[in-house]
């Protein structure tokens, strides 16, 4: 009895193997949909990431040859440096490390205040939008405009607003608040430059956050508020006990994207202040850029510093995701 299947199996093992291979291929044919994305990912993503990791252990000024496949690095332009790059900007080299920590400090200040500012502006806006039955789509459009027009064109407008004889100073003058004016311009003055940049960042980040909050609000059932009113809850209690907790997942998304973009971003700083005045708006991304493309190139240093930034970005994201999970799952 048991011999039957064996006998049946023996005649055409090759064909059988081929057909099972065919079946395996067919079962996995969905992979083909992912293939183009994967090829682009391997060439322009994975390869460059690995290159950057390898490069962070070398000292290279950009001249001569450096390649990772095969590993080629010709002294004196390029030398193996071990962990030197990391040590230098973290503590060993006084000027370099001072600049790095200062830039990181600016990043952290921005991450905190821009994120908090975005939430504090976007949430009331979204609640107001949700209440405003009439004109909602018009207001929504006006509020979304900054998102669309971000970039150098709008930075120019803000630069004019911040000029010594620009719009902000004259508005303050007209309001009789002369003592608040920045005589050398808002971007030119060490004590104002960072906050001026943060205002533009919040202005640019509010639209998306508002739209996300609005979508979140529209999923909350009205009965919850009606029940709360019957129980005698005040407006504040409703806000604090119903709206805020139910919107927490949205808040986490807003916080993650905001911190992420503030820690990684440097284009706006590049265009508006280039880190000035006197490094008072320097951020880590911009420093990495300057090591990579500035006057005195230290490409290994640029890579090493950018991996420090990665660790920070990743850690923040993990903490946020953990918070989301513990808060939303009872």
């Amino acid at each position, binding site marked *: 009895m048991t011999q039957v299947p064996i006998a049946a199996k023996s005649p055409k093992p090759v064909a059988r193997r081929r057909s099972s291979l065919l079946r395996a291929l067919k079962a*996995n044919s969905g992979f083909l949909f992912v293939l183009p994305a994967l090829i682009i990912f391997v060439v322009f*993503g994975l390869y460059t990431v690995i290159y950057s990791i390898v490069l962070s252990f070398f000292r290279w000024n950009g001249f001569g040859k450096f390649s990772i496949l095969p590993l080629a690095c010709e002294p004196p332009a390029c030398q193996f440096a071990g962990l030197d790059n990391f040590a230098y900007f973290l503590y060993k080299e006084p000027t370099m490390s001072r600049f790095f920590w200062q830039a990181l400090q600016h990043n952290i200040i921005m991450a905190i205040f821009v994120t908090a500012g975005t939430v504090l502006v976007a949430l009331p806006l979204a609640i107001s939008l949700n209440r405003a039955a009439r004109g909602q789509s018009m207001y929504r459009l006006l509020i979304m405009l900054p998102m*669309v027009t971000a970039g150098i064109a709008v930075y120019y407008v803000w630069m004019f607003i911040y000029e010594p004889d620009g719009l902000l100073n004259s508005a303050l003058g007209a309001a009789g608040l002369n003592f608040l004016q920045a005589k050398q311009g808002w971007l030119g003055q060490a004590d104002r430059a960072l906050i001026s940049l943060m205002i533009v960042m919040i202005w640019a980040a509010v639209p998306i956050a508002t739209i*996300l909050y609005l979508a*979140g609000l529209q999923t909350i059932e009205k009965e919850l508020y009606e029940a709360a009113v019957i129980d005698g809850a005040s407006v504040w209690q409703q806000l604090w006990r119903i709206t805020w907790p139910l919107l927490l997942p949205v808040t986490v998304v807003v916080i993650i994207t905001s911190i992420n973009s503030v820690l990684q971003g440097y284009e706006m700083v*590049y265009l508006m202040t280039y880190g000035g005045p006197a490094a008072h708006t320097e951020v880590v991304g911009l420093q990495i850029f300057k090591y990579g493309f500035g006057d005195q190139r230290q490409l290994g240093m640029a890579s090493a510093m950018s991996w420090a930034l990665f660790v920070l970005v990743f850690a923040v994201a993990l903490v946020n995701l953990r918070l989301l999970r513990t808060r939303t799952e009872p």
Partner: protein
Amino acid sequence: MDKARSAIAIVLSYIVLTAYAVLSVYPFLWMVSSALKSNQEVLGSRSLIPQEVRFDIIVNTWNQLDFFRYFVNSVLVSVLVVSGIILVYSMAGFGFARTKFVGNRVLFICFLGLLFVPGVTVLVPLVQLLRALGLIGRDAGQGATYFGLIMPIVNGAGPFSIFLFKNYFASLPSELHDAARVDGASQWGVYWRIYMPLSTPVIATVGILNFIGTWNAFIWPSIVLNNPDWFTLPLKLKDLDLQIVIQWNVRMAGSLIMVIPVIVVFLFLQRYYIRGLTAGAVKA
């Protein structure tokens, strides 16, 4: 009492909305108004309404600075980037959401991992890669350089686009997929004939996000494009800084030229965009 309270709440809402709408739109209004003024008036007057409307400034900016060329360059780059992203990552999103293959989940996570790698990290390696491939440098033509410019932008948009497409496709009823398969449609047929036509919101979202990003992109194009004739609008606009005296009205006219196309695209697609964005993110 309750009615009075809710009436106050609504009035308050409109006050908040109006106040913020002014803040939100004011820089843009100022841009428009300054593009229509003489430079002296831009510097001297604080009124949004020009004393004399000067359309010639926009026209001159467009003509003398040869903005048409840079406008075409910008359109070319943005359209290629956006269509590449939509095609490649809608396919990938469909693959991840609706087909089974070994390593599906692991690959998806690999893609998402790229989200956390700061863009600036790979700038130096990318330049080296493009140089090694002969895509940038003295001998590279415009086509090669644009390819080198575009591909990393496409790749950078990958993780988030895949994420949005995958979520959206997964939200469509799977019966669609199964029924079509029973009727003999191929996987490709299901993707192209059934899923894609149903996906306007997510296509609009991914399209707008990346159109805005590419249209406004400054740093990466400024690294890659070494021939001024190939510049995109932001680079040309930045070039105006090289003038000895800043002509604010010319600057604003250039800015306006750069901003208008994005606004037009956005006005057409905003309805879908909001739906697609919130569907993807709120679900996440």
